[in-house]
Every structure is written in C-alpha cells, then in structure tokens.
C-alpha cells in the first residue's frame, strides 16, 4: 500500500501484510440479567452439550449458536466440543428443546439479549452493549490464552 501523500513509514520493514487467516476471537454472551461472569471450559462444555440445563439460580439455559458448519462454529467444535460439524448437526437436531441455531451474529445477539437464561456464541467484533461477555477460565476474549481464539 502506498500513497504519494503518505508521510514517512516509521517502522520500515516490519511486515504488515494483509492476511486472510487472521485469528478469530469468539465471545460467550448471556443476557444482562444472568449473574454469571465466568465459566470454566468444562462448565461451558456441559452447557453446550446440554448436560447442564440450568443456571445456579434455577433459570433454564437456552443455547443459541450459528450453524455448526459455519467458520465460527468450527472453532468452537474444535477447541471446545471436540465434534465434527456433522456430529454437531446431529446433536443439535436431537436437542432442539435446549439448543437453537441462528443465522447471524445479529440474530444470536437479539435472541440472547431478550431471552432470560440464554447463552450464545458470537464473533468478538459483533458485540453490543445489550449482552454480557463471560470469561472462560478467568479470561476475556482479548486476553492471552483465551480458549476461543484461533483459526
């Protein structure tokens, strides 16, 4: 990238190449009324595999996620659930009462922000003030070592 009106390039050759394989970061979100602020990875697995169906206060948990074959969900399947997209599809079909599939981050956010007890996964850059972001194992998405970060 160049520009006749660009001023000087301070760091001359540190490579700043645009690259389509930038690491993704996903955020686990809940509605504002849910009091949880941190989950361990194993607690999260239990929620997403429908083994945990209620929050500590007794509220029912509804999981909402994008299609298991989407790029974001493949990261979740690989890093968290150890499932293939096909296994995840089958799992979602078998647990329609507890797991919902939405077609976009906006839809996930809309559902979570208006559904007490809902928990969802969205891209970090989709976040709005309408939801809470949970830590996983004490870490927020932007912190080193955060689980749901990668390609």
């Amino acid at each position, binding site marked *: *990238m160049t*520009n006749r009106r660009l001023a000087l390039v301070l*760091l001359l*050759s540190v*490579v700043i190449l645009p690259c389509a394989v930038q690491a993704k970061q996903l955020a686990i979100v809940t509605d504002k009324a849910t009091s949880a602020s941190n989950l361990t990875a194993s607690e999260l697995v239990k929620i997403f595999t429908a083994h945990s169906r209620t929050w500590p206060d007794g509220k029912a948990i509804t999981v909402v996620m994008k299609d298991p074959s989407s790029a974001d969900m493949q990261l979740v399947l690989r890093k968290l659930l150890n499932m293939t997209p096909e296994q995840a599809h089958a799992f979602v079909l078998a647990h329609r009462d507890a797991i919902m599939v939405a077609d976009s981050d906006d839809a996930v956010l809309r559902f979570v922000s208006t559904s007490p007890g809902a928990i969802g996964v969205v891209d970090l850059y989709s976040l709005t003030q309408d939801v809470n972001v949970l830590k996983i194992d004490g870490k927020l998405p932007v912190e080193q070592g955060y689980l749901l970060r990668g390609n």
Partner: protein
Amino acid sequence: MIRNIITSLAVLGLLLAAGVAQQTAPQQVASQQANPLTAVLPLTTKSPEARRLVQEALDLYLDRVEQEQAIDILRKAVQVDPDFAMGHEYLAQISLDSAEQVSEQEKAFAARSHASASEQMVIEWYQDAADHKLISAITKMNDVLNQYPHDKWVVWMTTWWLQNQAQYERVIAVYEKSGITDSPGLINNIGYNYAYLRQFDKAFAMMDKYVALLPNDSNPQDSYAEILRLAGRFNQSIEHYRASLVINPEFYSSQFGIADTYSLMGDQARARKEYEIGFQKFSLPELQQVLWKTREAATYVREGDNDGAEHAFQTIADYAHSRHNSQAEADTYRQMAICEQNPKQALVFLGQAEAATQEGKNALRIAISQELAQILRARVEVALKMGNKEMANSNLARLSDMSETANDKLIEVAYHGATGAVLFSERKYDQAISHLEEDTNNPFSLKLLAAAYQKIGYSAGAKRTNDTLTNLNDPTLEQALIVPAFRKCSEGASCGGNAKSASLKK
C-alpha cells in the same frame, strides 16, 4: 493505493444534514437516532466556520485523496473552535504525525462534554481502543453503527477501524448494509478488503467503479495496479501503474510500484532499473527513500546474491547513520541479520542494530521499542538456528517483559511470533499454534503455522495457511526470504508433505 499506512486508525467524518442547527440540541439527537435510515451523526461546534472546514477536510480526505490538505484544514478548524471535540478527533485519526495523533486524541477526550451523546460515544470508542480496552471499544463502535448505519462518515470510521483490526469480512458487511455506492474513498477501501480476502473478482469490480468515478486521478489506477499485483496478475498491474503515471507523472508511488512488481515477477535487473528511474526522477522524503532502497536491496536477496544484498543494505545503513536516523539504521541491520546465512555474523548485525536503537536519534520512543522487539525476535530465531536454547530463552524473556509492559500491538505480535517459533522447535505444536495465530501477517510465522497445523492433523487449517503463503505477493524482504522457496517446495518433491497441498492462484 489505500491511504495512510502509518496511522492505525483513519479518517473520521461527519456531515450535517441540511438545516441541522449549529449547536445540536439533545432533542435533535434523539430524533436523528429514531430513524437510522436517514440519521446522520451530529457535529457539534459553536462555530459554523469550524464545521464547514471539517466538512471540507473530510471530503478532501475520503473522496479526493488529499490527505495533507485535509489535515491542514482540520488544524484550522480546531483553532477556530478549540472545544470542537470531533474536530480534534478527526485530526487525531488522520494526522500523519504520531505526536499530534496522541495530543489531538487527548484534546478530543477532554472536550467531549461539549459534544452530543453520539459524538461522545465515537470519541470514547477511539479512546478505549487507544487504551487497549478492546471489548468496550467494539461495543461502542457497534452502538454508533447501529444508530447511523447509512451515514457515510460513520460507515467510513467503522470500516477503516475494522480494516485495521483485520476484520475484512465485517468491513464488507458494514459497507454492503450501508447502501452507499457513490463514495470513491469507500469504494477504494472496500476493494482492498475484497482483495485481502482473495475475492479478486469483487475487488476488480470495485476498482472499475473507482476508476470510473475518478477518471482523471492517478490513485484509482494505482490502487487497481496494487490489487492486480496481490492477485498475481503482474503484467496487468504494470499497465495500470503506467496509466497512473500518464495521468500524473509525479505520482511516484506508481513508479516504485512498477519496480516492486518486476521484482515479484522475478526480473530483478528490470526492477532495479525501475527503482533507479524513480530515485533519479523524484525527490523523496527520507524514509520513503530508505523504504524503496530497501526494496531494491531485496532484489539481490531474490537472486540469491548474498554479497550484492549485503552491499546494498550496508549502503542503506550507512546512509541512515549519516542522517542520524537510528531506527532506519537499526532496521536495516536487522534485515541484514535475517538474510544472513551465518548465525554468528547475523548476531554481529543484530548487535549493530541494537546499538543503533540505543542511540535512538530522531525517532519516537515507541518506534525504537518496536524496533527493539523485532531485533529480539530475530535474536530468538538466530538462536534457534544455532540450536542455542539458552540464548533463545533469554531473548524471549526480554521480549516477554517488553510485551507485558509496553501495551503495544506490534511488540505483542513480535513476542507471539518468537514464542511460537520456540514452542515449534520444542515440538509443542498446540501451544505454538496459539501464538503463531497471533502473528499471521508474518511469512515466517505463517510457514510454521501451516506446519504446526499439519502436525496436529488439522489439514483444513494447514491447506488454508499454505494457500495464503503461496499466494502472498508482497514486495517485502520477508516475502522474498520465504515465499519463493515455499512455492518451489510446494511444486517439487524435495519437501515435506505439508506444503504440497498449496495451490498457486493466478
């Protein structure tokens, strides 16, 4: 060409709809927020003249490629109304002077109580980003965007910020949702985003529109050329660079673009000839001179002419030293080190690089720190090449300390790249991946990442990364050192299996 490669953030802009009062009242903000189809972000100032200047500056910046003029006008605007918070914010974002970027951001933040709630949200978004409060910054950005999804300047702010965060898909989504089709500046930037995603048909379509909107400007031709080069269509790229120079013979980046393109095509003699034409024809700012001299030196690297490369780089280092430009001198020695086959000599160059950073002449402290981080990273890689784990770990520890305290993205990325390399050498592939994935703009890390994915059996990731690396057409030294050899490896029978699945797209 895409504007401003220095600032991490870019132009901000606001236009008032006709009839909006000079000082936006809260009721007006509320009514604008009520209809996102037509809402425009307010622009609050007590001075109509200051507002007019800002509007003029933003138009010059975004759609007429006149950045320096735009900056001068913004400076006048904030002189007219020193409490003009968004005026300061725009200047912070488009200034080419890093000290001014910082001071203007501070002024914008301090003056934000004079602005409307929406403007305050914008200023706080950028302030949070500067303070590395990324989640809060993202939330505020999206809240502003949701209020003004069709406002050209909000779309511009959002897409440029996201582009700098490498969120290319999201940039395109925001743009498409905006419905804006007549802004040359936005079209140019969206074209680049398609190119970064390697969706070249869409990128070329954007460039066709850009050329049609500004047929008498060199910049569309220059952008088109760069995108064609990214796609590996080198001959067409050169045609567009030449078209740019026909429109404006003083558009020097196109001359050097031609040279860079010949270099990527493998014609190093022709590349050097074109660089020399540029050096003789144009009087370049000092660091631009160093930048393209460095590209010229890389032609020798591409030819495997180590002596030629060393001589060319040494000439640049001597020039930088004579100009008391410590960072340029340090960076040149660092590059000599990463080209050097003999690890002991590489360490000598790195010693010279570090000595230059210690002199620190004519350079910002942060720039020197960033350079030092790159040097430490290079030391780690040289140590790994020597099999000296102790040396690798001691330099990594220094880099880790810097990364924890500097709060700087480039330094953090250098740390991740170095840590990934160390972990890879220890065959801790899972751990290596989590660090290398933070440094995917660097061909050295990309190569290791592809191999690490392969080692853990993540074939899709390995293939995607191999493809990215194979099709990387950027005229940098790092590309010269890694990509041509990687392509040969992927085509030949002498390499490990992980590179062979890569496909070269033309």
